[in-house]
């Protein structure tokens, strides 16, 4: 990871910018959304591999900074939503794509399903993902 940051630095022009955009684990909220509004049904459970991945990414950037390769210009967070039409589609997606870093506990799934059923015909489910965006300037 640190090697890649050095390689990116090599290809950047003087004062070039590196944008680091990625999700960070933070017990992402599960929500049911419809034309009537949205409700929180619970939170996902962060998994050790995902937490370790986040730590490794932060550590790599800290190391690149301490090497004198980059300086942080800006950093912020925002919400990014993943949507599914049904709770079962959400669960299937998580089991196939997110199993290493987020877990949908059974009680959260049940509550999500109950809220989805009662929320009306246009109800969908979503996960509110915490996104990090940081802008680094090449030194």
């Amino acid at each position, binding site marked *: 990871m640190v*090697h890649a940051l050095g390689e990116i630095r090599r290809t*950047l022009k003087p004062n070039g910018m590196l944008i680091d955009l990625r999700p960070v684990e933070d017990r992402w909220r599960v929500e049911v959304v419809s034309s009537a509004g949205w409700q929180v049904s619970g939170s996902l459970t962060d998994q050790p591999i995902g937490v370790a991945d986040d730590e490794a990414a932060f550590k790599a950037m800290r190391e690149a900074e301490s090497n004198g390769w980059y300086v942080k210009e800006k950093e912020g967070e925002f919400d990014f939503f993943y949507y599914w039409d049904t709770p079962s589609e959400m669960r299937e997606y998580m089991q196939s794509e997110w199993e290493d870093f987020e877990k949908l506990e059974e009680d959260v799934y049940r509550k999500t399903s109950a809220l989805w059923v009662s929320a009306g015909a246009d109800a969908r489910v979503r996960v509110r993902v915490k996104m990090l965006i940081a802008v680094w300037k090449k030194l």
Partner: protein
Amino acid sequence: MKSVSGEGRLTWRYAADAKRVAGFDLDRDSLRVARADCLHDHVHFACASANHIPFSKETFDIAVLAWSL
């Protein structure tokens, strides 16, 4: 320059405001989709990793690591 460009969904957004865009990914299936969907002459995709970027030094103004660090 975009590392881990995937199927290019974010790359298209940058492309509108850039003179030249290079996307890298090691996933050949994703690259195939990105190339098939590409409508821009100034956007190029390569099978490469950020550990060995196939460009000379001081080529790019901006590098984007999206979902990849």
